[in-house]
C-alpha cells in the first residue's frame, strides 16, 4: 500500500522537507510505494530575510518572491489550497476544497506577526515582517527628514532574534551614508537587561551602539503605542517618544493550528525537542516556527529540522528505527552595517561564540540571499553542510 507523507505549509521548512523526502525516497516514489503531498495556499514562496534589507534598498521584491512549484521537486504533489483543520486523531487534514489523509504528517505552518495584539501598534508603528510592510517602510525611510527613530520588539517570540539589532545598525548606517546622521536620533528598546539574549553577542553589539551613538533602553517590554502622542509605553511603567517607530509585532501560531486546537495559548505546537514529534504522536512531526521549542524562530532552524524529520520519516518507511535527532542547532547572520557582519551558530548545549564583524560574513550573507533559491530551498545541500 502507498504510504502518504503529507506536509502542511510551503515555507522554508515545508519546502526543504518535501524536496529532501523526494530525493531520499526516490526509488520508493518511482515504484508507487510512497507519495509526497504539500498543502500550501500561496503559489508564491517568500524568502523572508529579504524583508529586513528591502527598506534600505539592499534587496528587492524579485529576490524575495518566487514560484513555489518551481522550487519543488517534480515528484512532490503541490496542493494549492488553504488548510482549515488538522485532525491528528483520525489522521487527516481538511482544506477548503478537500480532505487529505496521511501516514506521516509534517506540520510546517510557521508563525504570524500579529500587530493587533498590542494596542496602537498597527496605527502607530512600522515593521518589516511582511513584504508590503517592508516596502512601506522603505518609502517612509526615504522620506524621513530627521527626528527620533525608535526600534523595538513588542512581544516574544518573534522571528529572527537578531533582526531588531540588525535593523538598528543598518538604519544608523543608512542615514550616515546619506549625510543625515546628525539629524537622526536612534533609540533601541529591548525586553532584556542587555541588548541581545546571548551575552557574548550583547557585549559586542552594545559596544557598537556606544561607538555609533545609538541609545539602548533596556528592560523595556512594550505594552502599548499611542499613535496620537507618538509615544511607546512599557509593561515596566516607562515610556518613550518617537517620530518614526519600527516595532516588531508579537507573533502567534497559524490560524489552522489555533482552530484545530492542537497548539498552546499562543498557537505553538508542543514538540519533542530531539525527535521533533508532536508530543504523544509519533506519526506527526513539527518543524520551523510552528513548534513550542524555546529556540530561535529562524529559517536555519527550519532548514536543520527539515533535515532531521525527513531522515526520520525515510527510516520509518524503510522499516528502520528513526536515527536522526535534532541538537537545537541554529545559525544566524548579524549585519552590523553595510559591508560588515557576524555569524552566530549555537545549539542546545553550546552557546554562540560570535565572530568579530567582518566583510566576509557580510558578503556571504548577501550571496546567501541568492544561494537560498538555488541550493537551500531545493535541498541540494541540506543544512548547508553545517
Amino acid at each position: 500500500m502507498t504510504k502518504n507523507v503529507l506536509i502542511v505549509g510551503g515555507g522554508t521548512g515545508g519546502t526543504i522537507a518535501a524536496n529532501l523526502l523526494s530525493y531520499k525516497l526516490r526509488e520508493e516514489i518511482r515504484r508507487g510505494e510512497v507519495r509526497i503531498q504539500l498543502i500550501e495556499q500561496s503559489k508564491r514562496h517568500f524568502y523572508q530575510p529579504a524583508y529586513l534589507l528591502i527598506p534600505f534598498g539592499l534587496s528587492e521584491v524579485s529576490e524575495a518572491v518566487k514560484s513555489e512549484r518551481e522550487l519543488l521537486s517534480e515528484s512532490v504533489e503541490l496542493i494549492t489550497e488553504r488548510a482549515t483543520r488538522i485532525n491528528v486523531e483520525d489522521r487527516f487534514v481538511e482544506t477548503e476544497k478537500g480532505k487529505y489523509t496521511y501516514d506521516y504528517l509534517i506540520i510546517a505552518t510557521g508563525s504570524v506577526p500579529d500587530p493587533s495584539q498590542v494596542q496602537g501598534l498597527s496605527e502607530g508603528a512600522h515593521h518589516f515582517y511582511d513584504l508590503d510592510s517592508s516596502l512601506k517602510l522603505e518609502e517612509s525611510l526615504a522620506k524621513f527628514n530627521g527626528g527620533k527613530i525608535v526600534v523595538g520588539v513588542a512581544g516574544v517570540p518573534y522571528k529572527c532574534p537578531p533582526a531588531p539589532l540588525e535593523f538598528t545598525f543598518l538604519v544608523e548606517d543608512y542615514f550616515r551614508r546619506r549625510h543625515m546622521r546628525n539629524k537622526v536620533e536612534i533609540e533601541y528598546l529591548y525586553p532584556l537587561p542587555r541588548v541581545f539574549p546571548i551575552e557574548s553577542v550583547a557585549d559586542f553589539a552594545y559596544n557598537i551602539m556606544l561607538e555609533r551613538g545609538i541609545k539602548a533602553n533596556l528592560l523595556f517590554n512594550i505594552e502599548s503605542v499611542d499613535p496620537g502622542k507618538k509615544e511607546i509605553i512599557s509593561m515596566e511603567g516607562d515610556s518613550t517618544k518617537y517620530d518614526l517607530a519600527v516595532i516588531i509585532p508579537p507573533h502567534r501560531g497559524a490560524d489552522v493550528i489555533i482552530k484545530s486546537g492542537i497548539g498552546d495559548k499562543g498557537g505553538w505546537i508542543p514538540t519533542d525537542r530531539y525527535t521533533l514529534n508532536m508530543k504523544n504522536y509519533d506519526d506527526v512531526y513539527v518543524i520551523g516556527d510552528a513548534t513550542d521549542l524555546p529556540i530561535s524562530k529562524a529559517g536555519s532552524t527550519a532548514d536543520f529540522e527539515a533535515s532531521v524529520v525527513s531522515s526520520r520519516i525515510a527510516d520509518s518507511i524503510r522499516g528502520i528505527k528513526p536515527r536522526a535527532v535534532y541538537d537545537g542547532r541554529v545559525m544566524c547572520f548579524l549585519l552590523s552595517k553595510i559591508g560588515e557582519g557576524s555569524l552566530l551558530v549555537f545549539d542546545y548545549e553550546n552557546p554562540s561564540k560570535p565572530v568579530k564583524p567582518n566583510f566576509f560574513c557580510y558578503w556571504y550573507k548577501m550571496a546567501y540571499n541568492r544561494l537560498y533559491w538555488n541550493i537551500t530551498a531545493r535541498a541540494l545541500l541540506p543544512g548547508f553542510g553545517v
Partner: protein
Amino acid sequence: MRLSEIKPNKIVDARGSFCPGPLMELIKAIKEAEVGEIVSVYSTDSGSKRDIPLWVQKAGHELLGVFEREGFTEFVVKKKR
C-alpha cells in the same frame, strides 16, 4: 505555605535555550498568565541568575524562589499585576 509546596500554574522548560533565552520565555509566560498565577522556568543559562531577578523586580512581579536542581536552575515567579 513552604516554598517546597509551591505548585506552579505553568512550567516553562527553557533548558538549552540561549536565544531567545529563558528570560524571554518567562516574559512570554507571564504575559499569558493571570494575575496571581505562578510560573516556574527551568534554565541552564548562567545569565539567568542575574537577568531573571532583575526583570521580575523591574516589572513588579514576585520571585518566590530560586532552586538549584540537577543540572539546571528553577525560578519560581508570581504574577502580581
